[in-house]
């Protein structure tokens, strides 16, 4: 055997496939990774500190900046937590709109993930295909709240605007189109022999490991644990809706891939039911600008597209929260990376990293 020297390589923070500004310090032996040390914090804006200087209303736009691919989830989780603190009920229509938006955002996020995973593996076409449909969802958001990336749509007590006029027709048309396009996505990757070779039995996370590292969302479900906050600790109107929780069994990259595609289908189902049942009425109750929750603490969480998005808010009875802790799913999901990468090949780094579906702003906060 030729003895090769150990080789230190810096992957990121500016690297095309670290999905943001993650930096991995890799110790390589030839093509094999001996040790991978993630370095994070390049996007740290101290969002938790900023919360202490803002009123409850003022903080909503900042929650968009957590997970900018699913910013509806950041909004939702925060608004839900504050509403629990305030102990208010919001109109049914607002609840439905919130859920529709969250699920649309979940689809958009999973589509983006699908595209970037394919891109990491060297296939460019799935990326464009996924973005083609994601674009339509973004158009829908733009029509609803005027923004395409950071929506700032949810308000304490409802949502900022009612749905646009032809929202339901457009949605139905789009969902039909998406259902037609799903087989295309599958054709490109699901049973492609190269894709299977790259993803089957790679980056396996056992269910014990997933629990130990506190993984949530699709990464946890792919390891075989049937847990979804939408079912396990239902919030909003999820108990009224009929949908399945898909699970994987091995916890390899392919499982995580297939599970997310399945989740897109479930989200389509949820949106369709919501559109059916959508009640009329007000989309928002008016709260004073200076809301003062009574002294107390709350930890409230929702199922974002990446897992458990939670807000731990401590109120001291004043205008501003005393402390806000953001429990971001990607933070725990990423912490497993150095264990996963040990002993893998360089080419698998991007596949494994991509399959975890991390998003850096929410890790760095």
């Amino acid at each position, binding site marked *: 055997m030729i003895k090769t*020297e150990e080789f230190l390589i810096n992957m990121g923070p500016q690297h095309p496939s670290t999905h943001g500004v993650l930096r991995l310090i890799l110790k390589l032996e030839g093509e094999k990774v001996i040790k991978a040390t993630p370095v994070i914090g390049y996007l740290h804006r101290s969002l938790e500190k900023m919360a202490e200087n803002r009123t409850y209303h003022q903080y909503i736009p900042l929650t968009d900046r957590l997970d900018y691919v699913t910013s509806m989830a950041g909004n939702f989780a925060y608004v839900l937590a504050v509403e629990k603190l305030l102990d208010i009920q919001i109109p049914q229509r607002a609840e439905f709109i919130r859920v529709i938006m969250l699920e649309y955002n979940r689809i958009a996020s999973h589509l983006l993930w699908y595209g970037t995973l394919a891109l990491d593996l060297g296939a460019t076409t799935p990326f464009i295909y996924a973005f083609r449909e994601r674009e339509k969802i973004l158009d829908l958001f733009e029509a609803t709240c005027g923004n395409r990336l950071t929506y700032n749509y949810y308000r304490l007590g409802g949502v900022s605007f009612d749905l646009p006029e032809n929202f339901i027709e457009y949605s139905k048309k789009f969902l039909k189109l998406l259902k037609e396009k799903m087989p295309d996505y599958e054709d490109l990757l699901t049973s492609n022999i190269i894709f299977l070779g790259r993803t089957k039995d790679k980056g396996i996370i056992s269910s014990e490991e997933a629990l130990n590292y506190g993984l949530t969302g699709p990464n946890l479900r792919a390891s075989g644990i049937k847990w979804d906050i939408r079912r396990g600790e239902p919030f909003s109107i999820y108990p009224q809706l009929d949908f399945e929780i898909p699970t994987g069994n091995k916890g390899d990259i392919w499982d995580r891939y297939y599970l997310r595609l399945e989740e897109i289908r479930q989200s389509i189902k949820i949106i369709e039911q919501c559109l059916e049942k959508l009640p009329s009425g007000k989309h928002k109750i008016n709260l004073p600008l200076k809301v003062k929750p009574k002294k107390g603490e709350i930890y409230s969480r929702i199922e974002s597209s990446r897992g458990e998005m939670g807000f731990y808010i401590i109120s001291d009875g004043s205008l501003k929260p005393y402390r806000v802790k953001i429990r971001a799913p990607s933070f725990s999901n990423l912490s497993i990376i150095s264990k996963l990468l040990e002993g893998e090949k360089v080419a698998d780094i991007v596949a494994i990293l991509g399959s975890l579906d991390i998003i850096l702003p929410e890790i760095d906060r």
Partner: protein
Amino acid sequence: MKEILFYFLSGIILFSAFLVIRLKNIFHAALCLIITFIAVAGIYLLLNAEFLALVQVLIYSGAIAILIIFAVMLTKISKVKIAHNDQQLTALLITLSLTLITFFILNHTNWEAGVNLLERGAIYEIGRELMLNYLLPFEVISIVLLAALMGAISLTKKESLNEDKKQEK
């Protein structure tokens, strides 16, 4: 015209061969070796031995030199500058004796015999000769090469197995 080309190529060969020995950066030395190989192929072309020239390029500069470069890159010795070599004297003696032997062979070979062969296309004749007259040596050489290959593989396998065992202990 041919003479000019010949001396030009010979000059390149000698100069780059000298550089191969004297250059301190081992990667540059390997590149010079490739230049030498290509220039030698040029000499073959001048002698109308097209097949030999192409095989020279294909095997020596295409495979062997690349393997050398590969090894150089993997071992990263380039940073170490080798100032002198203890075996210079021995090398000189061996080179001198080899040169003498070459001269001896050149002087005692009957060069007339080979000329006619090339008329029907070199590759045709080489093929005929290898498959009819020299079949046995040809096969023997291939078996020797195969044995060498297998030997190399088994040696490295054994070594790595031993290492694995050591690591397990």
